[in-house]
């Protein structure tokens, strides 16, 4: 399979990026002179810029667009107004398993813009198209836009230098101009820091990237390696690991992103039943007591009893310890502060059960 590449690919190569395949895209993993730890620290302490153009883009337009999206995806668009964004889920109707997690940008009753994950965009678009009513158009705009994430405590200062809007609240967006380029400045991100995501027409991505690095605020280019350690510290799920067709939002503690009182959305019956019965497993955080780094798919034990499986694990650069998200069996009755052991390549590593996040977020 041929990997897709970002419109900024040449710029990453010039910066000495190491590339990795992610969701069918060839994206920067880390940069020469950087590395995961430095890039992670830049976002926590200063400001980092990520090319996340692999993220999907899809648009639903026409009379009743917002109502239609609201009848499919889990979260309740009625909770937000135009100009606001919302984390939501596309679930499998029969099981409540997660097809994808998505940010929905509400422009108005007749216009919703969606940012699904790279690998799931085509499937989300297909499902929406199959369900669409007459008069609605659902278009896959995956390659039409680049997405640049500017994240960290100095992100506001950086965007202000370019005259871009910065005062809008968390999970809202504004249309703006950089010279003659029209772009959308969203107060969103996947790092837990105060930050922005710029949705830019692909043809102009290079000019916007150059402007961000020329704004007079020292920023570090950051790759998907740091994006993963940053999001794991926040306990943000990654679809394909912590959310999947086999993992429901009830199990993944994403029930806050479900509009339970809505009359209908995909997966409603299955999820209501699971919520009422109690899920058979729940997502918890684990923090290593000693050295040793938990990784996805490692098994979790209490004594000889297998009590769960890790879905994401890494070294926390902020806390300097191994951290993990794990699905633990409800029947084991585990809770905050309980001790478990993780099978790390044949050795047992002691870990403490906790509730994510592992690091206090400062998104607002």
């Amino acid at each position, binding site marked *: 399979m041929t990997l897709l590449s970002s419109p900024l690919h040449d710029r990453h190569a010039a910066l000495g990026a190491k590339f990795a395949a992610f969701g069918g895209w060839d994206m920067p993993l880390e940069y020469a002179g950087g*590395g995961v*730890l430095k890039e992670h620290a830049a976002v926590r302490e200063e400001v980092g810029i990520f090319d996340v153009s692999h993220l999907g883009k899809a648009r639903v337009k026409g009379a009743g667009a917002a109502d239609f999206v609201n009848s499919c995806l889990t979260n309740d668009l009625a909770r937000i107004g135009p100009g606001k964004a919302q984390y939501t889920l596309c679930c499998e109707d029969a099981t409540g398993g997660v097809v994808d997690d998505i940010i929905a940008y509400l422009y108005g009753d007749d216009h919703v813009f969606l940012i699904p994950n790279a690998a799931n965009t085509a499937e989300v678009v297909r499902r929406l198209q199959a369900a669409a009513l007459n008069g609605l158009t659902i278009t896959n705009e995956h390659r039409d836009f680049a997405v640049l994430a500017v994240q960290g405590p100095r992100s506001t200062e950086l965007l202000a230098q370019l005259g871009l809007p910065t005062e809008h609240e968390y999970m809202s967006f504004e249309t703006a101009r950089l010279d003659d380029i029209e772009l959308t400045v969203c107060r969103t991100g996947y790092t837990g820091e105060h930050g922005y995501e710029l949705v830019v027409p692909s043809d102009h991505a290079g000019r916007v990237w150059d402007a961000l690095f020329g704004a007079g605020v020292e920023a570090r280019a950051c790759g998907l390696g740091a994006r*993963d350690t940053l999001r794991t510290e926040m306990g943000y799920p990654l679809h394909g690991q912590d959310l999947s067709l086999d993992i429901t939002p009830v199990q993944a503690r994403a029930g806050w992103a479900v509009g339970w009182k809505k009359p209908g959305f995909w997966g409603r019956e299955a999820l209501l039943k699971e919520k009422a019965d109690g899920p058979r497993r729940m997502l918890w955080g684990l923090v290593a007591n000693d050295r040793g*780094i938990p990784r996805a798919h490692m098994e979790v034990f209490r004594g000889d009893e297998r009590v769960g499986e890790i879905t994401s694990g890494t070294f926390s650069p902020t806390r300097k310890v191994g951290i993990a998200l794990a699905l633990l069996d409800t029947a084991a009755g585990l809770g905050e502060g309980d001790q478990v052991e993780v099978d790390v390549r044949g050795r047992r590593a002691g870990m403490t059960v906790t509730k994510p996040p592992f690091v206090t977020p400062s998104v607002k």
Partner: protein
Amino acid sequence: MKIPDELRFTAEHEWVAEPSGGVVRVGITDFAQDALGDIVYVQLPEVGAQVTAGDSFGEVESTKSVSEIYAPLSGEITAVNQAVVDSPETINSDPYGAGWLVEIRLTDPEAVGSLLDSDGYSQLTK
């Protein structure tokens, strides 16, 4: 990518220094540290442990992956670099110097001659 002429190498990206009194110092190469990325955890054997050429005797783990370290030659561990256990990033910053891992008293000091020289290793990393 640095490949010092005075060292010997394995195909698994370890380096071995010139023996001194039958003891060699061992580490991982610049190529290996670069491929791993930021190293955050190192596990090494105890002093006195016997190691066998080709067998795993430790691990280096980065933020994104883990790699086993293989004994380049057989012998007994005579020293372990505690500095890299405490500060694993030393392996990234100085893989052939302060980032050494262990010293091994070789069962057969002549066996060093069986390892790759810098030209041979350089071919492998192209």
